């Protein structure tokens, strides 16, 4: 085996990568949900750090907001529930399966490393081509140009993923988390202070996204958090459920496609953004998307986190009824 030389690698890089790897291992091997979740959240934060290291601040913000924030929140909520006993399996069998998995995994990693080592260290010519095209895109921030202009089809489809996830989630959870019936003073304060602050932050991220890191997704994630908090604090106006919420969610997607149709009518090319009004159009769409994404994420959270104490009681009642009349 060749000796791996780390001479030309920054020690800090090695440490961060090690930390990421270790937290990743911890996140998947720790049997208790709570601890595993915490390890995963740390993993997410360290990843965000790594993103910053590879010159991807947009991704870092998104990771922090979405990966660490919303996903983390979803997981934390899931922890409120009792972890079901894992199915009884013989230790020996578990050990065998784990060993086989580990060996297969090691072989796969080795194969992948062989393949990856053949990749060129030269940057792809795509980067300069894309950067050069940014000035014809209507925005100055390269990633926003890619997301909302060059590859806006991907973005549209990704919105669709979020929208239909929310639609699906809404359909699958009939009983939702209920706002506290009598929000106390603390909750009121939280609602009054934090929610507007988050909304402002979302707005800033949105506008900044045209020239700096940020954009609709990050803004949407923050807005989603604001909606969730407002909901939990009993602000009925922010209810993320029902047909009205669904309408808000689908509006962004439909508007995006409409913009495509307008582009087709105006320039003969679907989703083409003519330079004159590209900035205005992008900002308008981003605003609608932010609201849609925020609402969709809130819906997802509320569907996933719905904890109605009634269910078990209902089941008991049903069982009793069933038992009473066999």
């Amino acid at each position, binding site marked *: 085996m060749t000796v791996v030389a780390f001479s030309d690698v920054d020690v800090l890089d090695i440490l961060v990568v090690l930390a990421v790897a270790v937290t990743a291992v911890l996140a998947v*091997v720790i049997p208790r949900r709570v601890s595993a979740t915490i390890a*995963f959240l740390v993993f997410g934060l360290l990843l965000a750090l790594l993103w910053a290291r590879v*010159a991807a601040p947009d*991704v870092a913000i998104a990771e922090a907001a979405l990966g660490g924030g919303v996903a983390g929140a979803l997981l934390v909520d899931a922890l409120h529930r009792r972890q079901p006993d894992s199915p009884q399996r013989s230790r020996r069998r578990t050990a065998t399966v784990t060993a086989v998995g580990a060996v297969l995994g090691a072989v*796969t990693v080795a194969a992948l490393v062989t393949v990856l080592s053949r990749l060129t*260290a030269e940057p792809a010519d795509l*980067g300069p081509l894309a*950067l050069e095209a940014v000035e014809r895109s209507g925005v100055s921030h390269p990633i926003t*140009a890619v997301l909302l202009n060059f590859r806006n089809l991907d973005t549209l489809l990704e919105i669709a993923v*979020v929208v239909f996830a929310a639609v699906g989630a809404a359909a699958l959870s009939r009983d939702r988390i209920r706002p506290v019936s009598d929000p106390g003073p603390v909750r009121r304060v939280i609602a009054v202070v934090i929610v507007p602050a988050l909304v402002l932050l979302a707005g800033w991220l949105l506008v900044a996204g045209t020239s700096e890191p940020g954009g609709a997704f990050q803004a949407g994630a923050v807005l989603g958090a604001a909606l969730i908090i407002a909901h939990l604090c009993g602000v009925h106006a922010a209810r993320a459920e029902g047909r009205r919420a669904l309408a808000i969610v689908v509006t962004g997607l439909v508007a995006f496609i409409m913009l495509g149709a307008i582009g087709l009518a105006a320039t003969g090319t679907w989703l083409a953004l003519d330079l004159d009004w590209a900035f205005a159009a992008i900002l308008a769409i981003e605003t609608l998307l932010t609201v849609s994404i925020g609402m969709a994420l809130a819906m997802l959270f509320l569907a996933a986190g719905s904890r109605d104490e009634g269910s078990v009681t209902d089941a008991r009642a049903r069982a009793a009824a069933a038992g009473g009349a066999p």
Partner: protein
Amino acid sequence: MTTLQLFLYAGAFILVLGVVATMLVRDLIRRLIALNVASGGVMLLLLALADRGDGEPDPVPQALVLTGIVVMAAVTGIAIVLARRVERLDDDLEEVEP
């Protein structure tokens, strides 16, 4: 080994780790965590590839990763909704069966 290779290999390791765990772990929430770990590995790979060379990083793969992260968040959301349904059904069954 270069920094690029360090990141690439780490990405591959994390991906495989996550996939193997997804297949082996039984607890639904932990499986979901494993899946998210795996996706983190691929993202790392893509971003490292975007940042090759000394110049400005390639914005295209970065945008791809952004898209990927949002998609994974949506997947995670729907998976938790389902996991909740599954476990509540199990709870209900436990309540009914004894």
